[in-house]
């Protein structure tokens, strides 16, 4: 198939997914697009929002529309790592001989919903670390590969802090994007009421298969990106570091640690996906800017002053996007 056809097909497929999800989820188009971006980049998503905004429903709808194996883990304080990744159990064969056999946990799925992930203890949370990064699970010295594609969608509630365990920075960095689920507007609420108070139950149709997703992931990585666009992404990530020459005054004041190199990878890959969504063959600066906040906001660790003053990392990134020149000095002097 020609590349142009592939790009067009890509756009069509994911428009279908969006349409299917839109049957159940009202609004939240940017969140849906972010979830699809994570899926196509092979990354994981962290959804944050107050209860009742449809986070779990959104992920379940995505699983239904993608025709992928879906599992849900409700994180609680007494949840153990073995409850997630599985454990070895003793079985007895026909000759009445006993043996150990690995029983895979719910993490062995294409689409894993880690609901209220911050309610589990750090020990249990860290059980997901290896699975999210390496896409393998090691139990009793035996490494068990996870099914491809593997996609973790975690949700957390920002309001209830009692009895919760904030995610460690190492695990936060493993999420490709952090998506904020905001409160719906008046029209969206009206639509939600109409849809959820009827007797009729909507059913979603699976429009994408595992192979289609796999092929789309490969296509995404081939999208060209110009060197100056890549430089811009790098400068943007470097600008999140307080000791960087690109850092703004606010970053120098409020940020303790900036984004890791995973931030640049996320920016470029998400930019490529966005270019394909828009049926373009190249990544633009606007693509990088559009994905900067969800890709970087959970990677910035604020210092005490920033926490005390209630600074939002998203605001810092928006500030950087406004201040950071699009072009390096060489090109900037050209057009001056």
């Amino acid at each position, binding site marked *: 198939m020609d*590349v142009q056809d592939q790009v067009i097909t890509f756009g069509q497929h994911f428009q279908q997914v969006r349409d299917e999800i839109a049957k159940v989820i009202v609004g939240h188009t940017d969140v849906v697009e972010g979830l699809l971006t994570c899926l196509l980049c092979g990354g994981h998503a962290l959804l944050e929002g107050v209860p009742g905004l449809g986070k779990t429903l959104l992920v379940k709808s995505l699983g239904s529309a993608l025709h992928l194996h879906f599992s849900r883990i409700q994180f609680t304080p007494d949840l153990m790592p073995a409850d997630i990744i599985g454990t070895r159990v003793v079985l007895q064969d026909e000759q009445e001989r006993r043996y150990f056999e690995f029983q895979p946990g719910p993490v062995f799925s294409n689409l894993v919903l880690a609901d209220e992930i911050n309610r589990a203890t750090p020990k249990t949370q860290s059980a997901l670390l290896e699975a999210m990064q390496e896409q393998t699970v090691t139990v009793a010295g035996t490494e068990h590969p996870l099914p491809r594609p593997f996609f973790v969608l975690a949700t957390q509630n920002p309001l209830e802090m009692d009895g919760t365990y904030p995610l460690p920075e190492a695990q936060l960095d493993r999420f490709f994007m952090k998506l904020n689920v905001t409160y719906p507007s008046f029209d969206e609420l009206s639509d939600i009421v109409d849809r959820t108070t009827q007797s009729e139950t909507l059913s979603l149709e699976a429009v994408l298969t595992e192979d289609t997703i796999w092929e789309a992931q490969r296509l995404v990585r081939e999208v*060209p990106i*110009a060197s*100056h666009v890549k430089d811009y992404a790098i400068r943007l990530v470097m600008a999140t570091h307080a000791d960087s020459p690109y850092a703004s005054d606010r970053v120098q004041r409020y940020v303790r640690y900036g984004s890791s190199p995973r931030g640049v990878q996320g920016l470029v890959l998400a930019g490529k996906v966005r270019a394909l969504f828009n049926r373009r063959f190249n990544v*633009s600066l606007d693509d990088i800017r559009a994905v900067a906040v969800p890709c970087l906001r959970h990677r910035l660790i604020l210092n005490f002053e920033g926490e005390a003053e209630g600074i939002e990392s998203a605001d810092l990134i928006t500030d950087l996007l406004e201040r950071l020149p699009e*072009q390096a000095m060489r090109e900037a002097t050209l*057009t001056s």
Partner: protein
Amino acid sequence: MDNHQKLHAIGRQLQQRWLFLRRRGLAGEIFLVASGLAFLATVGARVFGWPISLFWLYGGILGLALLVWAGLAWWVRVEPLSVLIAADRTMGLEERLSTAYEYEQQQPDHRFVPGLVAEAEQAAARVDARLVFPSHLPRRLWGIPLLLLAIIGLHRFDMTPFHFDDLAQDEASKEVQREGKRLEDWGRKLEQLAQQEQLDRSLILARHMKHLGRRLQREGDKGEQASERISTLSQYLQRLHQELRERALMSESGAMAVQDILASGKSAKQELQDILQLLRGDTLPGEMKNVAEQGIQRLSRQLGDNPELQQLMQDLQAGNVSAARQLLQDLIQKQQAAEDMEHLERARRALQYSARSLQNDKPSESSTKPQPSQGQQPGESGEAFDFGDETLSEDMPGMDDFDTPGFGEDHGFGRHAKQGPKRDLRESEQPVTKVPVKSGEGQMRLGYMRHLPLHNEAKVPLEQAVVTYQQAAEQVLAQEQIPRGYRDQIKQYFLAIGMAASETQAAGQEGAREE
């Protein structure tokens, strides 16, 4: 391939447009700097009178500017990718042109390149080089016509020579300027002569005259009085110049005479008396003869070629001691008579000056002043100038030094004695001219002298005074433990630290008990 050529074509088009604008901008900047330099040089040439040929000046600046511009224009380069990035940014093409160009150049086999270039081709059709790189004139380049107009203006109006401290020059009358200039010139000549002659006081006077001339040129027209005063000073300076020039002619002998006087520390009269002491006897030993001859030689150098001294030397060498002694006695008497004459002359002048001062009180006489005829030298006309004029002594420190014997006088063995009737009309005999002027910055001499009181000034012996004051001081110390001036401060201090309060409370308690 056709698409590639079009992409390159738009790249070249943008490149040329940018280079054209950049080189034009450089030309403007360089011409602005050159105009500024030309303006400064014109100011220097036209206003301050710098000796610069304007043809070579403007030619040189223009040539240099062209050379610099050519070098910079050749050095300026731009890559096609850079202009394509600028086009993407300006036209909102979402980096299509730059990405397509870069991948076409670096990864032509990339499977996205055909589609990418096709999109870039469509986008390039919308690119207008004039929109990507619009032509705009920097505001600072408007300074070029202003500078050129300023240069033309400088050429239109003659401003040479211009001094910023001569802003009041327009108001000054031409006569005052001319006389002031004349005075300054004479002061300068006088200064040179005084430097040659190593005459310190004359040098100071000459410099003062020079500065006075400059000042009068700046003062402007203050009426006829200033003009008259300048004229008087100018003529007086001419006379001084003539005298100094005559002195300069006898530079060697005069200088040696001064040196001899300084070395021996004797005046002419003393020298004559010493020689007379040597010639008391009828015979003169060889050593004494040598000493006497040396003394006569010193006198000859000091007083110039004097026939009486030559005769004295001849008599001495011939061994005619009595004739030499007689001649010496005549010379001493003549010298004494000259000094007496000088004292008498001073007294006469003082009396005459007092009499004229009384006459000047009358208003009708105070305004009269004779003017020297134009082109007539002061010495030739027989008119001398008033050395005792208050204006001179007020404005010119050191002027009194010229009113001493031997300077412009007719007495003694000086060569001026030979000038005879020229000096009959003295300056003091001139009618006094009183020109009201503003007092200048005169020099003030202050001297302090510490001395013991004279014998008659002390009423009480020192020993008694010391004892009295010592007793009084001890009495004061015995009466007061705390000096009176410090009482309040010490009381406030103890109040501040609480001691006085506790004492007050204790005193109050004691008072209560007593009650």
